[in-house]
C-alpha cells in the first residue's frame, strides 16, 4: 500500500473512532452544560450499554461465532439491539441521577463529581461480578461488505457507525432546538436560576439530559461492540477518557463542539499512531487536552468559561 492510501485509511479509521467518541462525548457535554458536573459514571454507563446490547443480541440466539444475517432479519435485529442498549442505558442514567445526584442538588463544589466516581466504581464491579472478567466475543450479525476508496477499504460496520451517529446527532440537534423540553434544556444551560424562575422544571430537564446522554452512550456502546466484536468490563475507562477529552476539546457544554472534538480526537489518535507510535498516543491526546485548556480554555466551540472571571 502506498503512503497516501495508508493515510486515507487512517483517516477513515479515525473518523469511525471519532464518531463513537462523539456520541459518548455528547453525554458529558449535555450534563456539564446544564449542571457543571463532570460525570464519571458516564464511563461505565457506556460499558454497561455494550453489555445490554450484547445480551439483547444473544437473546435472539446470536453468539460470538459469526452468524451473518441479511435483509429484514438484520435490520430488525439491529433495531432491537439499539432499542435495548439505548433505552437501558438511558434509564440507568436517569436512575443514577435520581438516586445519587438529585439529593446533592445545590451542594457546591466537587461533591457531585466525587459521587459519580463512586457510582462508576459500583457499576464497574457489579458487571465484573455478574458477567465475569473475561473478554466477550461480541455477536456480529453483519455481513462482511467492503468498498475500496482509492486503495483504502471502507466496510459496512464503519458505514453503520457513521450513519447511526449522524442520525442520532441530527435527531438530538432537532430535539434541543425545536422541542419544548429541548428549549428548556438550553435555557437551563444558559442560566438555571433564571430558567427555574421562568417556570422550567429543572429536575425534569436534568433527568432528560441524563437520559439523552446515557442513551447516546448506549448507542455508542453497541456500535463499539459490533465494530470491535468485543466487550469487557474494562472498556469504559479508556473510551470514556477520550470522549471526555473530545468534549473538552470541542468546548464542553456545546453539542456541536462534542461532535467536532470527538472526530478530532479520533483523527489525532490514528494519525498520531501512524506518524509517531501508538505507545505515545495517550501522551499526545492528554498533552493536547492540557494545551487546549491552558491556551484556549473554552475549547473550539464552547461558550462555557472554564476560567474564573
Amino acid at each position, binding site marked *: 500500500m502506498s503512503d497516501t492510501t495508508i493515510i486515507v485509511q487512517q483517516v477513515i479509521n479515525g473518523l469511525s473512532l471519532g464518531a463513537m467518541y462523539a456520541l459518548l462525548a455528547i453525554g458529558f457535554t449535555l450534563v456539564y452544560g446544564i449542571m*457543571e*458536573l*463532570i460525570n464519571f459514571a458516564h464511563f461505565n454507563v457506556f460499558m454497561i450499554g455494550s453489555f445490554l446490547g450484547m445480551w439483547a443480541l444473544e437473546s435472539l440466539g446470536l453468539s460470538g461465532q459469526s452468524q451473518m444475517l441479511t435483509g429484514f432479519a438484520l435490520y430488525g435485529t439491529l433495531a432491537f439491539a439499539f432499542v435495548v442498549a439505548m433505552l437501558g442505558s438511558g434509564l440507568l442514567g436517569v436512575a443514577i441521577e435520581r438516586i*445519587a445526584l438529585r*439529593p*446533592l442538588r445545590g*451542594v457546591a*463544589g*466537587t*461533591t457531585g*463529581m*466525587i*459521587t459519580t*466516581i*463512586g*457510582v*462508576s*466504581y*459500583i457499576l*464497574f*464491579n*457489579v458487571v*465484573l*461480578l455478574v458477567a465475569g472478567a473475561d473478554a466477550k466475543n461480541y455477536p456480529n450479525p453483519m455481513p462482511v461488505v467492503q468498498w475500496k476508496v482509492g486503495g483504502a477499504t471502507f466496510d459496512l460496520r464503519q458505514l453503520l457507525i457513521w450513519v447511526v451517529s449522524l442520525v442520532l446527532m441530527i435527531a438530538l440537534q432537532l430535539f434541543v432546538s425545536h422541542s419544548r423540553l429541548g428549549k428548556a434544556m438550553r435555557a437551563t444551560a444558559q442560566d438555571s436560576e433564571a430558567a427555574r424562575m421562568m417556570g422550567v422544571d429543572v429536575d425534569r430537564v436534568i433527568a432528560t439530559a441524563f437520559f439523552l446522554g446515557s442513551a447516546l452512550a448506549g448507542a455508542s456502546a453497541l456500535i463499539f461492540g459490533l465494530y470491535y466484536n468485543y466487550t469487557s468490563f474494562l472498556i469504559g*475507562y479508556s473510551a470514556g*477518557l477520550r470522549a*471526555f477529552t473530545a468534549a*473538552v476539546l470541542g468546548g464542553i457544554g456545546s453539542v456541536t463542539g462534542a461532535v467536532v472534538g470527538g472526530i478530532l480526537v479520533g483523527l489525532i489518535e490514528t494519525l498520531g499512531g501512524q506518524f509517531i507510535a501508538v*505507545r*505515545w498516543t*495517550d*501522551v499526545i491526546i*492528554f*498533552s493536547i*487536552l*492540557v494545551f487546549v*485548556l*491552558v491556551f484556549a*480554555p473554552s475549547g473550539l466551540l464552547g461558550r462555557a*468559561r*472554564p*476560567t*474564573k*472571571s
Partner: protein
Amino acid sequence: MTIQAKLTGPWPEVASWLRARTTLRTQHASMACLLLVALLFPPLINNDGDVDAAANALSFAALALGLNIVVGFAGLLDLGYAAFFAIGAYAYGALASWQLHPAWSSFWVPFQWLDLVSEVDGAVHFQVSFWLMLPISAAIAAFFGILFGAPTLRLKGDYLAIVTLGFGEIVPIVARNSPTLTNGAQGLNGVLPPVLFGYQFGVDATPYYYVGLALVVFLMFTSQRLKMSRIGRAWMAIREDEIGAAAMGVDRVRYKLMAFAIGAAFAGATGTLYVAKLQTATPEMFMFPVSVMLLVMIVFGGMGNVWGVVVGALILQILQSWLLQDLSGWLQALGELINVEWLQHVDLSQSIELIFGIILVLMMLYRRQGLIPASRRVAGLSLDEQAAQVSRGGFDALAGLGSIEERRTGPLLEIEGLTVRFGGLVALRSVSLSVPAHGIVAVIGPNGSGKSTLFNAVTGLLRADSGSVRFAGQQIAGMPAHRILKLGIARTFQNLRLFPNLTVLENVLVGMHSRLRTGLVGAVVRPPGTNREEHDAQERALEILSVFGNRLVPRINHVVSSLSYANRRRAEIARAIATRPKLLLLDEPTAGMNPAETLELADQIKSLNRLGLTIVLIEHKLDVVVNLADNVVVLDHGEVIASGPPDVVRRDEEVIRAYLGRSANVA
C-alpha cells in the same frame, strides 16, 4: 492594656476561646497516648504481614496529607496526584539501584568520595543514601508540582481536575516508555534498602513502619502548623473565595503554586519511602486509580482536616489489605461451623471495590463533611447573649492601627479618563474623579451605572482599558489586586465576599495577610518572632472586632456562614479594616440592614473617618449619603454626570432626571 484584661466578663465566648489555649495541654496528652500506641504496635501485634500492611497504610496516609494540602486547604482539585508519588519513587529508584550504569570515568570520582556512587565492574553504581534522597525527592516532586501547577492557575475547579488528570496519565506512560530510566514495565531491580547508622533495613517491615510513622507525624505536624498560619489562612481563603482572597491581598499565583509544590513534596518523599520498602517499582503502581483512591480517602476522612484525612487513609487502606480478607476467612469458618453452604464460599475480597463505591456514594449523600469534619460548628449563643443589649466598642482601640492617622493634604485617589469595556459594552466611559485625603465620597447612580465596576477597576480585580488611577501619587492602574491592597486600598463587596467556612476571627486574620510576614519556614518552625506576630495579629483582630461591640465579639469562633446578614456586612468591614487601609471602598455597606442598624453603621463609618480613614462608599440609601458624604459623585451609564456636595447634587437637574426622577420623592 491587654485584650484579656479588656474583654473578660461581658463576652464569655472570648474567655472560652482563651481557655481553649490551655486545653491544648490535654490534647497534647491524648496525642502522646496515640503515638505511644503507634510506637508499640509492631511488638504488640508481632506479625510482620500486619506491620507491613500498617506501613503501607501509613504511606497512603502521608500521600493523603499531601493531597489534603492541595485539595483540602487550597481547594485545588487534583486528580493526578499519583504522578508526584511516581516522580518521588522513580527519583530514588533511579539513583539507588542498578538501573542506570554509565561507564566509569574520572567524572564520577568526586561523587564516589561523597559516597553517592561506587564503581562496579567498570560501571557506575548509584547508591545515593535514602535519607539524602527523602528531601531531594521532595524537592524534585515540588519542582514538578510547580511545573504542572503553573498552567492550571487560571482554571476553575473541575477544569483544573481535568488538567491534573491529564498529567496523572502522562507521567506513568512516560515512565513505561522510558525503560532506560525506569526499566519500564519490567519493574526496577535492586533498589537499595535504607541504612541508618550501619543498621540495614533489609526486608523486615518494622523499620519501614517506623520511618512511615515518623513521616506521617512530621507531615501532620507540618500540615497542622501550616493550616494555623498566615499561609494556611491564605490557602483557605483561596479555596473559599478566590476573588475575595485576591482583594484581601493574597497573591493567588504564589499561594496556589506553593500548595502544589508542598503537596507534591509530600508525595515525593512518600514515593521514596515506598519504593525503598518495596525495592521495586512498576509504572502500574501510579495510575489513575491511585489518585482516585487518595481522593476517596480524604473525602471519607474529612477534607481539610488533618486528623480526618489520616484516619480516612488508614481505615480504607487497612480495610482492604487486612480486614476484608480476614473477614472472608471468618465468614467461611462461620459457614463451616453452622454448616451454611454459601457462607463457606464467601469471598469479600473480590467485592472490595464495590464496597468502596457504595461507601463513597453513601458518604456523599449522608455525610459529606467526612468522618472528622474540618470546621467544627460552635454551639449557638445562649439566650442571654442573644438578648444582650446592643453595645458598641470604642474606636480608641483602632487608634494604634498605624498609617491611617498619618495626615496628608490633597487628593488621596485621583482617577482620570478611566474606561472599562466588556466586549462591546462600555461599563465606564472616561471617568474622572478625585477623593481628598480623609474625606468621605459617595458614589451613587442607578443600577448598572458602573459603580461596582469602578471599585473593581480601582482595586485591580478588573483591568481598565485606558485611563489612570493614582493613589497617593502612585500610578496603580494595571497592578494586581494584592499589590494594590498592600499600598492601602481595601474594599467590601456588594454581594459579600467573605470566606464562608472560616470563622469570623479567621476572616479578619486573612485581612491582615499583607501586613504579616510569616513565610513557609516560619509557619512550620514557629520561631519566637512568628509566635509574637501571630499573637499580636490575633489581639489586633479582636480589637477591630470590638469596634462592633457585642455584635461580633461573642461570635469570633463562628463560621461566617452562620452569621446574620448584617453581621456578615460588619465582619466584612472588620476584615477590610484589618488590612490597615488608607482608603476604604465600601460597596453598599448598609444593604439588608434595618433603619436602626443602618444608623449604627453610618455612625461607625463616621468614626472610622474621624480616625483618619479616607472612605468611598457606594450607597443607595440617600439619607446615609447626605449624612456621611462630603462629596457625591453620580454615575449614569458609565459616565460621571454630576459631582459636588450632597445638597448641590440633589438639586442638579440632570441627576434628578437620570436618577432621582425614577422615584420622585427619594430623600
